[in-house]
C-alpha cells in the first residue's frame, strides 16, 4: 500500500474505533465504580495487614502474587536485554562528556536522591509510594553519575548480587508462609500498631526487597542500554 493510502486508511479506522470507545465508555458508570471487591478490601485492610496505605496492602498482601509477577517481569526484561545486548566487549563506551552543570550537580544530587529513595521505600506501607517508586528514584540516583561521566566503566557486579538476593528474599518470605502450613505470601510478624514505622508485619520487608531489586535492575538496564551505544550516533542515518 502506498504510504499515505495506509495513513488515510488507519486514520479512518482510528476514528471509527474512537467513536465506538467513546459510546462504550458512555455506558460506564463513571464515578460510581461497582467497588465489588474494593469496598471489602478498604474496610478490612487495616486490621488484616496493619498498613495504612491500603494500596500497598493490596499490592503486597491481597494481590501479593501480582507484585511477585511484576518483579519477575522486570527481572525477565533485564535478563533478556542483557542477553540481547550481550555487550561483554562494549568496554570503551565512547560519548561526548556531559556539560559542566550536569557534572557538578550530579555529585551534589547523588546523596539527596539516595535519601529520598530510601525514605519512600521504607515508608511504603504508611504513606503513598513504596518499593517501585522508591526503587526508581534509587536507580536514578545511580544513573545520574553515569550521565555525567559517560566514559566511566560501569561494574554490574554489585548490582546483580543485590538484585539476586532481593528477589530471593521476596520469594523466601512467600515460601515461609507455605512452610507453616499456611498459604503462599501470608503476611507474617503480626500487624503491629498502625501508623508507626515497624508495623504491618512482613510488608515493609517485602517493599524493601522490591525497592532494592527495582533500583538495581533499572540502573543496570539503563547502564547497559547506554553502554550499547546511542542509536542516534550509531553510524548511518535513522
Amino acid at each position, binding site marked *: 500500500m502506498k504510504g499515505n493510502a495506509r495513513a488515510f486508511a488507519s486514520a479512518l479506522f482510528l476514528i471509527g474505533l474512537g467513536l465506538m470507545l467513546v459510546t462504550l465508555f458512555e455506558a460506564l458508570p463513571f464515578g460510581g465504580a461497582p467497588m465489588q471487591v474494593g469496598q471489602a478490601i478498604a474496610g478490612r485492610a487495616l486490621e488484616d495487614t496493619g498498613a495504612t496505605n491500603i494500596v500497598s496492602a*493490596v499490592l503486597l498482601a491481597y494481590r501479593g502474587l501480582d507484585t511477585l509477577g511484576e518483579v519477575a517481569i522486570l527481572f525477565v526484561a533485564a535478563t533478556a536485554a542483557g542477553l540481547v545486548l550481550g555487550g561483554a566487549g562494549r568496554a570503551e563506551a565512547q560519548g561526548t562528556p556531559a556539560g559542566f552543570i550536569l557534572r557538578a550537580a550530579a555529585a551534589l544530587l547523588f546523596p539527596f536522591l539516595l535519601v529520598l529513595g530510601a525514605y519512600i521505600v521504607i515508608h511504603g506501607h504508611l504513606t503513598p509510594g513504596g518499593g517501585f517508586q522508591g526503587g526508581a528514584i534509587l536507580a536514578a540516583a545511580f544513573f545520574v553519575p553515569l550521565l555525567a561521566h559517560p566514559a566511566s566503566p560501569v561494574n554490574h557486579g554489585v548490582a546483580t548480587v543485590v538484585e539476586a538476593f532481593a528477589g530471593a528474599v521476596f520469594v523466601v518470605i512467600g515460601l515461609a508462609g507455605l512452610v507453616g502450613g499456611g498459604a503462599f505470601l501470608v503476611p507474617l510478624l503480626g500487624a503491629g500498631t498502625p501508623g508507626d514505622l515497624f508495623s504491618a508485619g512482613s510488608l515493609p520487608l517485602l517493599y524493601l526487597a522490591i525497592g532494592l531489586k527495582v533500583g538495581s535492575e533499572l540502573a543496570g538496564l539503563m547502564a547497559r542500554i547506554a553502554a550499547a551505544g546511542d542509536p542516534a550516533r550509531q*553510524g548511518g542515518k535513522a
Partner: protein
Amino acid sequence: MTMDAEMLGKALYAGAVCLVLLGLYGMVVPRNLMRIVLGLVLLESGVNLFLVAAGFRADAAAPILTAPFTAQAAGPLVDPVPQALVLTAIVIGVGVLALGLALVVRVKEAYGTLDTHAVANRMARETGADPAVTAAGARTPGALPVAAGRTAEDAP
C-alpha cells in the same frame, strides 16, 4: 455527583481515549521502528489512565488512612485495587519498553536501518532464501551490515 465531578469524569475518559487513539496511530502509520515503540508507550499510558479512571469515585478520598487509623473515620475511599493494578501495568510497560529498545539497538546494528519494510525484506531474504543461516554461521552482533543505507529493494 456535583457538576465538576461529572466534567472530570468526561475529561478523564476522553483523555484516555485520545491517548489510546494517538498510541494506535503512532504504532500503525510510521515506518520507523523507534516511532512505533514510542507509539506503544503512548498506547499503554492511555490504557493505564483508563484503568485508574475505572476505580474513581466522585465523593471519595484517596485510600490512605490518616491519623485516627480507623476505617470508618476516613469516610468513603476510592477503589484501591485499580491503583495497584496500574502500578503493575506501568512496570510491565517499562520492562517491555526496555527490551524493545535493546532490540531496536540490535536491529539498527544488524540492518543499518529502522525502516520496517527494509528490515522485513532483509530478514525474509536472510532466513528464507539463504539456507546458510545455521546456528554456527550466526552473524556476530558487532559485524557492520554490508549495505549501510537504504537500497532499492527496501521500497515497500
